[in-house]
């Protein structure tokens, strides 16, 4: 867009010109019009005075018309029950167009069909396994991504079918609660605690070769992937029972919540509660190495947390003991960044958060409102866990726990105590130049902090820019390794090994410093094709 065109657009918007977008939604594969599709538009960049009701449904010939729009760059996408669901915003399928002054007509908006994956799940004898569940999960079956990409129960004929799966690489995960059949001698019900039992462990397709790398299946739009057969295997399992110490359940309240998670495969988990007398029992645990955690949650606050290793062999395991450790309550103050030593006077709603960085599963994030006078109380903080501290300020300049001083956003608590936060207000900057023209689809920057977060891509800094003419970037002070990536990058959709590969192969080290001259960053953004190349390389 030329400067003049931009000026004209800005002017027409200022004059309040309203235009319509008219077009047809078509199937990206067949080119056929799609009836009953919901079309949604959004302004790029975000504009607060954008009409809220900017959506329409296509008629029987696939046509739609959205009125009352402001000319300029917009993102458009369509959704439909017979196409993959929109899971993220903005969706990957969004098309970015310029809405001309006078409106746009005959726009053909493509809607991309998903794939359908179908097959059968059978037991060890080849009989159907009704009521097992098949989930479509990411290549790494990331336990933090709780929602699968698709799900299907298995029917009476052993069949499953998952449709509307967006193009991508996946694994299928099969779960069932129904234990394998077995003869049981005549005995009291309570005797089950002494019996080893059988279970169907969670199964994957494609199966993971022993010691090998997980395989995946790739689906393309409109693909009908049929005939997958998943046979469940029977494994021996044992009951695990024991005793919680250091915890008294409230009257009529629940006991501690206990979880066994298989090391290296945390989605393979068992759950139970302790009784009033502190006793607990897991049934049907497969032999292996586990993390045993005990947590107690009362009125949304974690009051106890403890973790220990547990080895489960092929004999029923009794007398496991776990001590419940109370969590910390951390009271504190936010200081006024401009007047050291003085608490911050509250302006509007403010919140302090602690997000666990490298913690056992089950350690939640913690929030506290900041009261007038800059005071806050964080409850349910787990000792020894590394947290990222954040609040209603760009970053943390310094934090004091008791008389120990730390710098930056990463913090660890060894005992309950008083926390003082000195906010950082002025962000540090760097100047950015890209060696190739900035892509239309936007640019994402990945900043790998060179501190304790280095090995945890979830806690890196991700910046997304939709303006192609970007020059200055801002971040909390510190040392980073930076890369640029074409388009929008969602850390939850990218496996960690790919993140490490990106920063390793093209990362530029840079230090962001407040009050110092902005350093120069010259980056070559990874194109979509290059990223796919890396993905392919890593898979081998």
């Amino acid at each position, binding site marked *: 867009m030329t400067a003049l065109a931009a000026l004209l657009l800005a002017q027409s918007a200022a004059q309040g010109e309203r235009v319509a977008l008219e077009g047809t939604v078509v199937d990206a594969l067949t080119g056929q019009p799609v*009836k*009953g599709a*919901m079309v949604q538009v959004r302004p790029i960049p975000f504009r607060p005075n954008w009409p809220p009701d900017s959506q329409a*449904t296509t008629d*029987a010939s696939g046509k739609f018309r959205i009125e009352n729009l402001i000319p300029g760059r917009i993102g458009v996408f369509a959704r*439909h*029950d*017979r*196409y993959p669901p929109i899971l993220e915003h903005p969706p990957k399928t969004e098309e970015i167009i310029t809405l001309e002054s006078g409106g746009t007509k005959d726009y053909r908006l493509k809607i991309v069909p*998903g794939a*359908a994956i179908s097959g059968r799940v059978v037991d060890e*004898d080849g*009989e159907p396994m*009704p*009521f097992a569940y098949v989930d479509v999960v990411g290549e790494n079956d990331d336990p933090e991504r709780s929602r699968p990409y698709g799900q299907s129960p298995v*029917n*009476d*004929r052993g069949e499953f*079918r998952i*449709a*509307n799966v967006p193009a991508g690489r996946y694994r299928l995960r099969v779960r069932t609660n129904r234990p394998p*059949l*077995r*003869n*049981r*001698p*005549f*005995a*009291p*019900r*309570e*005797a089950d605690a*002494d*019996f*080893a039992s*059988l279970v169907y462990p969670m199964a994957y397709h494609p199966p993971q070769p022993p010691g090998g790398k997980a395989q995946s299946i790739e689906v393309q739009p409109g693909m009908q992937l049929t005939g997958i057969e998943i046979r469940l295997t029977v494994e*021996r399992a044992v009951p695990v029972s024991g005793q919680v110490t250091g915890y008294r359940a409230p009257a009529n309240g629940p006991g501690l919540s206990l979880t066994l998670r298989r090391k290296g495969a945390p989605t393979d988990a068992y759950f139970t509660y302790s009784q009033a007398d502190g006793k607990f029992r897991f049934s049907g645990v497969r032999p292996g190495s586990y993390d045993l955690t005990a947590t107690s949650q009362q009125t949304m606050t974690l009051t106890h947390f403890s973790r220990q290793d547990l080895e489960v062999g092929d004999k029923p395991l009794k007398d496991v003991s776990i001590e419940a450790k109370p969590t910390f309550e951390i009271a504190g103050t936010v200081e006024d960044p401009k007047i050291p030593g003085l608490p911050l006077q509250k302006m509007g709603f403010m919140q302090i958060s602690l997000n666990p960085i490298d913690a056992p599963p089950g350690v939640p994030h913690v929030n506290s409102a900041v009261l007038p006078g800059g005071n806050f109380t964080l409850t349910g903080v787990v000792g020894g866990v590394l947290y990222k501290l954040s609040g209603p300020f760009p970053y943390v300049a310094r934090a004091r726990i008791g008389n120990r001083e730390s710098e930056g956003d990463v913090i660890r608590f060894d005992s309950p105590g008083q926390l003082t936060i000195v906010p950082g207000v002025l962000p540090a900057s760097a100047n950015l130049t890209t060696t190739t023209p900035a892509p239309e689809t936007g640019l994402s920057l990945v900043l790998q902090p060179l501190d304790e977060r280095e090995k945890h891509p979830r806690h890196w800094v991700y910046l997304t820019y939709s303006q192609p003419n970007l020059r200055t970037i801002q971040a909390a002070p510190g040392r980073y390794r930076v890369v640029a990536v074409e388009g929008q990058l969602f850390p939850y959709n990218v496996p960690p090994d790919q993140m490490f590969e990106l920063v390793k192969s093209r990362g530029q080290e840079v230090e962001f410093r407040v009050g110092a001259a902005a350093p120069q960053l010259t980056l070559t953004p990874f194109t979509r094709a290059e990223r796919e190349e890396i993905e392919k390389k890593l898979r081998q």
Partner: protein
Amino acid sequence: MSGAIRFVAHFAWCAAAYAQASGTGVMSGRVLDAVTGEPIRKVAVQSYLGSSYATSITNERGEFRLEGLPAGSYRVLATKPGYINSAYGTERNTQPGTYVKLAAGEQNPNINFRLTPAGAVSGSIVDSDGEPVAQARVVLIREVWRRGRWQFQMANQATTDERGEYRMFFVPPGRYVLEAAAAFGSRIGKTARLAAYYPRASTLERAERLTIAPGKELSGLKIWTEIAPTASIRARVEGAPEGVDPHVSLRATANEITRMSWSSTSSYQGLYRFEEIPSGPYEVWATAGKLLAVEKLTLAPGADRELTLRLKPFLEMNGEVVVEGPGAEKFRNFKVTLTRPTFRGGPAPTAAADPATLKFKFTGLEPGVWDIGVNVPPNGYLKSMTLGDLDVLNEEMELNESPDAPLKIVVGTDGAQLTVEMENALPAIALIAPTGKLRDIESHRRFLYTDADGKIPVRGMPPGEYRVWAFEDVDASQLSPEFLDRHEKFATTVRLAAGQSAVVKVKRIESAGGAQ
């Protein structure tokens, strides 16, 4: 392979640890498919005695063997997905079955089961152009004989896939109708897909009846649906006490199965708005403290109705219990409970009668149909229940306003005792119903199972003439007048006088279906 051997070894150890010292018995038998007569493998057969049990899994020939069983009266269950669970002595899971008596050291090789295979239903949902509708909720509704008429009950549900297709399985044999439930909301904009019934009906009553036979699949059932503009309601509430914000709710009354409701506690300038709701019949309820208003209305597609709800006090009802018969003066503790014929949530209103006067009073009652429950003395019975001129023992009690007349409950202390004895002490399920027009009133019927000796003792029977049917196997939800008329010739008549003890011997009506 070695793994399999290890399992066996382990269970053998368990068996040894829990084996009875001596004189344990064995139950064995076969499990066959009631339709094909073929043996069924991998059926779990379990024998229960108190809180102890044993399990045996059938082999390729459908055979099982339960060992190490001490003497006692066992319940034996056979379960396999795809078949109706069965207790020994019956074929359906609606019945608890009968006991198997095992003497010390006895071997009973005749514990045989015939399992009824479940059916399936499949098809598609289309719009008025015949195009598939994805993500549509499909509900299978079972027709059951309850409270003296055919009623509907949710049986199964499914969601259509992107091709508009659905499939429901493990469906017990019976009479059904099929619904494509209404859909509305942001997914389809300011229109609603109206509820539709197989194949093309707009109400449950006009739906085609489907008979699902054991082990059969009804396929290709296509339901045509229609889209209509949504409607809206603006309700104003009058007569709310100072400082009390009324609560307004909306209940769709098109059918009791896929009942939808909305509620609102906030108004804008006294106006409660319900927008983008499907057209159809509704009840609008408003409550504020101890006041209530109910309006019934039908919304046309696209309608925007305004209405005013005038709050009135909740209903009140006075009543008394009268006890008649020998020792009547001894019984002074009565508790009367009102329940809804269809569950709506919330506690059932209860009133205790004053021991001196036997009078009771209900306050805070919602209008509508109420069922009356009262505790009767041992061997006592309900003689009559009247509300003014209304016979509420034999008719439904529908309250629209606080009744002027009291609810009068007459309890007799001298009910009759009846023992039904099965010929050859066979296990059976008996239906005992009065003769004449009271036969089809559910509260007068008794539906009971034989004990381990093939007997059914019943107390507190109102005096009168009864017919007794004893079935090998029957579905309790299908005991319609037509069904009983068809089986009239198999019934045995018995007359009971007040305070009398009678024994009636009956012959079992053998099940027709299934391969023997």
